């Protein structure tokens, strides 16, 4: 599947507190409302200005901190196609794949704010349409590709009644 959208650039070490702040803890039971505040503490205008299908493009260690799955959930609910970063924090990485939010590890220095991007997860390439360049993706482990293809871990377990990953 090919996904197209605009890049929204963020820096290094974007934490789950930036993405889904603790002060909005009470919105964890109302994710569509929480999604209106996604990444608010990193960029207060982001949720208002982004469009459906856009990409979050960050530096290293995206999603560090808490295990709150609400962080990738509200990114997905807000309508982000995928998150691209130089690296991801471990728990965020698992959580995003588990809920079916694609993550793309690549050299995000090759992308500027507002660039038009085209993501093809199958052949492992991000096309930067604005700069007319191809960016290579670090492939996901097979286990994670299986989870993503089944639509997330809960759906995988629902389908097989057990883990059928390894």
């Amino acid at each position, binding site marked *: 599947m090919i996904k197209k959208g605009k890049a929204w650039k963020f820096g290094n070490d974007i934490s789950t*507190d*930036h993405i889904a702040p603790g002060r909005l*803890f009470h919105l964890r039971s109302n994710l569509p409302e929480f999604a209106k505040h996604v990444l608010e503490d990193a960029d207060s205008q982001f949720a208002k200005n982004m469009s459906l299908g856009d990409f979050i493009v960050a530096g290293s260690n995206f999603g*560090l901190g808490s295990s709150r799955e609400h962080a990738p959930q509200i990114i997905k609910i807000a309508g982000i196609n995928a998150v691209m970063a130089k690296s991801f*924090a471990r728990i965020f990485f698992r*959580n995003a794949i*588990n809920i079916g939010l694609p993550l793309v590890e690549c050299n995000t220095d090759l992308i500027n704010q507002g660039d038009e991007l085209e993501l093809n997860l199958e052949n492992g390439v991000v096309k930067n349409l604005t700069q007319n360049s191809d960016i290579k993706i670090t492939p996901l482990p097979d286990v994670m590709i299986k989870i993503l293809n089944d639509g997330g871990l*809960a759906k995988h377990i629902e389908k097989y009644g057990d883990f059928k990953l390894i």
Partner: protein
Amino acid sequence: MGKTIIEKIIGEYSNKDVIAGDFVVAKVDVTAVQDGTGPLTIEEIKKIGLEQAKNPLRTILFIDHAAPSPRKELSNSHKIMREFAKKTGSILSEVGEGVCHQRLAEDYVNPGEILIGADSHTCTSGALGAFATGMGSTDVGIAIALGKVWLKIPETIKIIVNNEFQPGVYAKDLILHLIGLIGADGATYKALEFTGKTIKNMSMSNRFTLSNMAVEAGAKAGLIESDEITEKYLISRGRGEKFKKIKADNDAIYEKVIEIDASKLKPTISCPHTVDNTTTVDKLKDVKVDQVFIGTCTNGRIEDLRVAASILKGKKVNPGTRLLVVPASKNVFSQALKEELIDIFVEAGAVIMTPGCGPCVGVHCGILGDDEVCLATQNRNFQGRMGNPKGYIYLSSPATAAYSAITGYISDPRQVIKSVAV
């Protein structure tokens, strides 16, 4: 070929000879959620018709992050957890019983076991020689329902620490120093193993502080071999029979080895807004503190409160500073009452709050005002962590925090601590 602690434990639980890099499905002994992650966990497994607990007596639901509840939405989330516990026969840890990580270590996790918890600081129990790691609601939900989890066996970084700390320097200073050294992503996807003479002589309380913060370097686990000190701790908690010796082989393969001389460390501080933004206390001049917070799963144990009380005894908190003290669990609170530490805090002008997470998560009990500075013994200082993105959080040991509460500025506890504590 020799194995690291994590290779040994996961290998045993997946019935395979495993090495770093392998993927396995392993059985899980203990599962845990808290009130921030538990309701979503329950919702996820309900959706797929798996509202069940494979091992109900080792499935614990903790109400600790927003406890007592400050809002009706959170009260309703707590109700969902209570109902699930009742329906499945799982254990509920109620308001006031304490932070999940402290409670898991006190009463539930044993050496050689696997704990999967929906909270990033689940790695705390690694100090018992267990494989304990944090995951999200879906992973933990499936682990609760089926008693299994998929894992990639991480490579291990060995941290060897030798010699004695100077008076006024503690495990908290060591772990902040290490995170400053390797960075907030210095151990991403990897495990840390702490060893060396300093660790072998270290109390369980200080060991928990080290393992607790492994995730702040990105690590999946922070493991310490189990020994006589672990056994004594288990005996003190009434489960000495659960002791098992867990240690790495001498010829285990490590991704990297880092050696630290504990005697050279100084009281260390993480400055806003990342944990790896560290410096030593003597380099910070004129940082005025509006709030000091002593507590959390990192440093809210009885040993931490004893250190703080020894500094605050007969003294007063600076008039320009608020001091909040939150015991990590009811057991800690009760012990602190017996030892009259709470009297010392109250007389010094501190506020004592319900055992639990306190203001660490930014939900209640001490949210910072704009431009306010907090010195906290917690594990994280991210922007917005304590409820206000315009607040500034510094991290330190309980000794540095207690002395700074008296002076009103971030201050060096070596000025008042003259003898070594382990």
